[in-house]
Structure formats: C-alpha cells, structure tokens
C-alpha cells in the first residue's frame, strides 16, 4: 500500500513539534476530512533555519509533513516556494492514488507558513 519511504517517515517522523516564537505559521486541511497539517518556520537571512510540524491524519499525511520539513530546512524562501505537493510525493517514492488529493497537503501548509512570514515581515 505505502512505499518504504512513506512508512519510514511515518514511523520516524522528522521535525515534529513547535517553534518558540516562530516567524511564520501555516495550517491547512480540516478535521471533517480527517487531515490537518500545521507547519511553523524560523527564518533568518531569507533562509528557513528551522521548521517543525504537527499533523492530524493518516500515514500519508504524517509522512508528507515530515518529508516537506526535511526538504525545506536550510533552503531559501524562493526554493521553498517551488516545492509542490507533487514533488513531496515524488520524494516519498509516490503515494497511493487515493491519497494524492486528500492527504498530500504538506507543501500547501509550508506555503501558508511562508505567506504568514511575508505578511509579518513586509518588504
């Protein structure tokens, strides 16, 4: 059902938690559909220095959240913005088709966090 990489990230998720005084916070999904992804970022000199997540959802939701934090740490905001749900899924060696829409929102949560950061730090 799931790739080895999905299971590995699900069983050993990276960067779980919250950041004290986060620079940007993003949250997508809703409890009705069964997935909520919450991502917090710490930004310095245009670079994502730290990133943490909390996710309510299935294994795909948790694994994509974990993967996106791994992909984005140490990257510039511009690089982070180019990450899509699809590239996250590809980095996990794919997701079952039914999961591509409902549980693959981690990049959206990241983009929301970046948007939040931009709003707080205009210019």
């Amino acid at each position, binding site marked *: 059902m799931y790739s080895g990489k999905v299971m590995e990230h699900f069983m050993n998720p990276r960067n779980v938690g919250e950041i004290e005084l986060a620079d940007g916070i993003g949250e997508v999904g809703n409890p009705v559909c069964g997935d909520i992804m919450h991502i917090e970022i710490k930004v310095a000199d245009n670079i994502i220095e730290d990133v943490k997540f909390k996710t309510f959802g299935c294994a795909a939701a948790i694994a994509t959240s974990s993967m996106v934090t791994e992909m984005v740490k140490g990257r510039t905001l511009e690089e982070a913005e180019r990450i899509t749900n699809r590239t996250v899924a590809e980095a996990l060696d794919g997701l079952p088709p*039914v999961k591509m829409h409902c549980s693959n929102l981690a990049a959206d949560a990241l983009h929301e966090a970046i948007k939040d950061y931009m709003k707080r730090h205009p210019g």
Partner: protein
Amino acid sequence: MKTIYMDHSATTPVDPRVFSAMIPYYNDVFGNASSVHTPGQKARQAVEDARDKVAALIKATPQEIIFTTGGTEADNQALIGYMQANAHRGRHIITSAIEHHAVLDTCEYLHKQGYDLTVLPVNSLGMVEPQVLKDTMRDDTVLVSIMHANNEIGTIQSIKELAAIAHEGGAVFHTDAVQSFGKLDINVRDMGIDMLSASAHKLYGPKGIGCLYVNKKIKLAKYLHGGAQERNRRAGTENVPAIVGFGVAAQLAGDNRLESAARLTALGQRLQKGILERVPHARLTGHPSLRLPGSVSVCFEFVEGESVLLMLDSYGIAASSGSACTSGSLDPSHVLLAIGLPHVIAHGSLRLTLGHSNTDEDVDYVLDIIPKVVESLRKMSPLYANVGGVA
C-alpha cells in the same frame, strides 16, 4: 514477531478440522454434484450433509438453505430476488442506516430501479428503535431488512421484536447475520426471520461460500440463471469442498458456541475496560452490553484511525478502523456517522474483534501497546495541543 490477530470480524483462519474435511473433495471426491454416476452422487451426499449442518445451526430445514458465494451474494439474492417476485404486493423496502454495504447498496440499486426505499435511523448505541420501524411501515411495505449484529460496532438488534412488527404490517423480514451466525443463538422460527444471510469465512470456514436461508413459504425470483441447482433457485455447479467446509465450520461453531461466547465476552470486556481506563479521551462505540462476544470498538480523539492501525501493525497487532482512509472514501464509516459521531471523532475509530486464537496474554500485550501508540500520535496532533494535551 508474533502476529496478534484481532480482526476476526473481517475474516478468520480456516479451522484445521474444516480444512482437512475439505481436502478430499478437491481430488478424491471431485464429482459434479449434479451427475448421476457414483462420483457425482458422492459429491451430492457431501453437499446435502453440509446443508443439514448449516440448517441445524439456525433451526431451519435443509430445503430452506441456498448456498451462495458468501454474504454479499446472499444479501443481493434476498433483496433483489424477493422484490422481483413480489412487486405486485407492494414496492416499499425498509432497511437501516448501519447495514453492511451489501444490503445498503443493493437497496439503493433497487431504489434506482423504481422501488421505494426508507432507511431507518439508529440511536446513539446503534439500535433500530422498534417504534421507529412501526411508524415507518406502510400499506405497500413488503420487505424489511435489518442486520442482526453490526460488523463495526457490534450492536445486536432486537430481531424478534422487529420481525414481529414487519409481519404485523404484512412484510417479510430479512436479516444479514454474517457477523452473528454461529456466534449468537439463532432460531429462525422463534425469531420470525424469513430470510437470513450468512458467510463461512467469519466462522473459521473458507472464503467464497455462504448461504441464504429462505423460509419455504417465500417466493424468490431466481438469481443466477443457467442450471437447476439449489432447487432451481441459484444456478451454477456447487463448490463442493467449500460447502463441505462451511458445514463443518457451522457444526463446530454450534458445538462450541456457549463456551466460546463466554470466553470471548470476558476477554473483550477486559480489553474494552482496559483501553478506556488507560487512554484518556477515548469512548466506546456501540452498545455497552448488547454486542457481539469479543467485539471491541472505540474512538480515540485527536488521532486518525489509519495511523493507529499502521503503528499497531508495527507491533504485530492486526486491527481495523472505520476512518475515511480505511474506507477508501473521504468520509468515515457510515455506521459511525449514523450513531451520531462527528466526523473528527469517527476518524479516530479502532475495532478489535477477538477470536479463537486470542489469549489473556494477547489482551495484556495490546493493552500495553495501545496507550503508547495513541500517545505518540497525539504528540504529533495539532488538535491535541489545542485542548491542552502534552505538547
């Protein structure tokens, strides 16, 4: 790692006694039960012996048993076959919101074919309230189909009372007894059941075989065409080994029923109590006492069921869930929604169904693991932090 299988409502292993009874019918006694020669007649005898055993379990006569490929086919044949043969009497069907999809989807199919359909609600314990059925009966109601015991939450319906209401209103009563067959005492005469669906693989028999009991007074349209098998009610060469296995499984289930039910009820209650004591923000789903022996169903708030299942699986524990991710749709189980659970709670459902293989040690192990799994997922859950859980 040892596998602790607690998903017996999904399927059961074939009992070794069942398996060895089946083997000769794959090669030594391979005849077609419709053939007149000796090999054929030996197969015929085996089929009829099995039919006797299956009928005896529910106090039916052998002539009232039609072998099918399982519960799904039995449900389809009962509902479609009855409506096709009796449409002149009326066109209204009543069923309940917590039926298995084999009944619900078949009723929806009939509805699309122009029949009238009412789907009864259930209360928060998953019971169809008899008064609600009474109030829903119409002059043209001809068929009421309400399951005996629910596969997800274990709730057992007041079948005798519901069947009596159906009869008072001039309708026949069908019950999907896939989960209860061989586990609860069933007497079709005493309970007023006109049609009943059952499946062998839920009671340590093989997959791909089941039956429909049809009271001899009831007229049913033929379901599959192409032969006179099953007293001309269901065409197709009999699956002799599977039928033999079903017969033995039914007999063993009947012989051990009381002992097994007592053991599984005690084991299930300990598991249920232990989970609710050890895991905060957990609730039982289904009826607290009127439930299948060994059936435990709970919802854990702030976590999602598929995640729980996969983590339990990593500890060797096989269970199931009614979360959206495990139902293959975007909604959690229709049963959990029908008992009034909000989506977010229903997503955190876990079902553990005990069977022959499970021991007290298994229950201890599972009670040790479940709180750890739930807690580790809650630590990741943004919902848990919001209610002041440990971050």
